């Protein structure tokens, strides 16, 4: 805001010309003898005063930005950690005045890759995501914005380097052919007159609340179910036994692991927790299947004895429900090979009252839920 001596603006008439004109008027007055008819006057003009407003802006890779940076489509193959692909990068710079800069992402949109693809977002060499994490989690966390300038980013400072490392683990679900985008938002606010102590209040994203924090369990999207809260819909109290099988669940094959064995009352709930079914690689995972048996016979007229059927996915059904592996009762696929949603009812006896991933995130419900 210092004076720009080299950029003086036109001031209009020079003072000398003005005075010449004034003198002429005076001379006429004096010559006419009408001293009160033509006044002598002086004039001082401060010319060319100017009040110019500056600008606050950002550049991305050197070009002015509208505040949105899109990376992708990110098409990655399942691979080992050592062979993970290199990062997508962009630089954020200040175009004019020193600014504070916040980086944010939109909320996750249920992208099929969201839970399988892991990303690590690194700003100037430091991860802002705590390392590799599922894309959906990263988007949910970054939706509230993160400050990325070290102090205040000036136009002459080195730009802030943002690197996004994508990684699709080798043991992740097959999402071949799928692609996703990752969009960032960048926001800048002037540093001048805003104390560092007050800067946090300038984060425009801080109040962002993602519309739904639930995680879908469908299409083999890689979600690992960690717990199920089930409501018993039987008419009478019963002893329910739940066995987790397959997928390395307990390493016991179809014999499975008993993950719940207890008395339940009509409309009462009970919890099946993955920690009781130590599966290969993920101790919190409940496994790909559970079987529920309340000791009754023919609990569901549409349940086949061999477990290959189901209840047909009626309005309250889900296409699961058959027995399998020689187990009595009702089968629930927990591998997300078929949709698993809060509100689903299995065998007419068990309603999913709540469910969560191994990371504690709630699973999405049916439209009614």
């Amino acid at each position: 805001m210092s004076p720009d001596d080299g950029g003086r603006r036109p001031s209009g008439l020079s003072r000398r010309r003005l005075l010449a004109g004034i003198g002429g008027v005076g001379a006429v007055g004096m010559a006419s003898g009408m001293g009160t008819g033509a006044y002598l006057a002086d004039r001082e003009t401060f010319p060319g005063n100017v009040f110019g407003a500056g600008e606050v802006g950002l550049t991305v890779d050197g070009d002015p930005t509208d505040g949105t940076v899109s990376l992708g489509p990110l098409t990655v193959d399942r691979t080992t950690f050592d062979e993970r692909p290199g990062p997508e990068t962009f630089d954020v710079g200040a175009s004019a005045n020193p600014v504070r800069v916040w980086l944010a992402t939109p909320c996750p949109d249920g992208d099929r890759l969201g839970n399988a693809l892991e990303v690590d977002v690194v700003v100037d060499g430091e991860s802002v995501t705590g390392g590799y994490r599922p894309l959906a989690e990263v988007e949910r966390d970054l939706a509230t914005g993160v400050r990325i300038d070290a102090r205040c980013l000036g136009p002459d400072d080195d730009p802030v380097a943002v690197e996004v490392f994508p990684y699709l683990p080798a043991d992740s679900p097959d999402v071949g052919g799928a692609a996703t985008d990752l969009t960032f938002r960048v926001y800048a606010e002037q540093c001048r007159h805003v104390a560092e102590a007050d800067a946090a209040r300038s984060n425009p994203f801080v109040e962002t609340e993602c519309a739904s924090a639930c995680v879908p369990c469908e299409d083999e999207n890689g979600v690992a179910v960690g717990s199920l809260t089930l409501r018993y819909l039987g008419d009478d109290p019963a002893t329910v036994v739940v066995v987790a099988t397959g997928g390395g669940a307990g390493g016991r094959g179809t014999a499975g692991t008993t993950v719940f064995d207890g008395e339940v009352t009509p409309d009462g709930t009970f919890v099946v927790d993955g920690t009781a079914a130590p599966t290969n690689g993920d101790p919190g995972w409940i496994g790909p299947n559970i079987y529920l048996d309340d000791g009754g016979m023919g609990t569901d007229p549409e349940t086949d004895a061999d477990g290959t059927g189901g209840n047909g996915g009626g309005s309250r059904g889900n296409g699961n429900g058959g027995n399998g592996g020689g187990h009595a009762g009702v089968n629930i696929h927990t591998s997300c090979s078929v949709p698993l949603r809060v509100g689903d009812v299995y065998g007419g006896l068990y309603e999913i009252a709540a469910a969560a991933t191994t990371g504690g995130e709630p699973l999405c419900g049916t439209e009614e839920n």
Partner: protein
Amino acid sequence: MTQKESGLTRREALAGAGAVGFAALGAASGRPTGTDNWDEYTNYTYAQTDTPFNLLVGWRRTENGTLVDSSAVGAVDDVGAVGVRLVDVGNALPHDYGTASVGLRLEDPEDTARVWLRIDPHLDGADAASAALAERVTLTVRQDTGIFGIGSCGGAEGEFASAGELIADETFADIDGSALADGIELRPGLLGDGCLAPGEQRCLTFAWEFDSEGGNAGQGGAVDFLVEFAADECGAEGNPFDGNVAAGGGGGAGGDA
């Protein structure tokens, strides 16, 4: 500055820049309390004129509390010729503020004069950003009279600056087309005939502020304006700025010759 869930355009992203987190105005630094003694108006020197009225001018200006320009002690400048500016800001941001102090003295052994002031922003034809900026920048002009003469001509940073009679306190947009844009007589107080006697001084303070409210309105805009003083004979009637020979420069000395 609402960015939730919607695409964030740069304009939207910047929209709240003026409304969030601006610190309170700092106290203006600067000179100690002024005095009613012109000779103590220390940092001021005078412009020279060679017309019947030797109207001398001293000035200083600050930006965000820092002195950025003043009439050099001992130097004699022609205000118009050297292009002295009372406001010369090219990169203002919301919550910027500044001052200008001007002292006028009729350095003439015999004559008396009336002194007039005109500030004309010339907003006609301004682009949208400049017009918006004019709505956000407030200019406060006061007679620097102190309190009952005590502390007069202390400058805009003086202790009694706020006690001076208010001439204007409005945005440039409001000034445009106002009486101040046509010219007003500087006639502090109710006593006397308002004439400036030889050796007497009139001092003014100007304070501007870029309003922090308003988001990005005015970003990149500019407001140009003249600050003109005119001295006229005490017996004169009417506005000496009337009948100017050219717009923007002033000229003709009032008078229906």
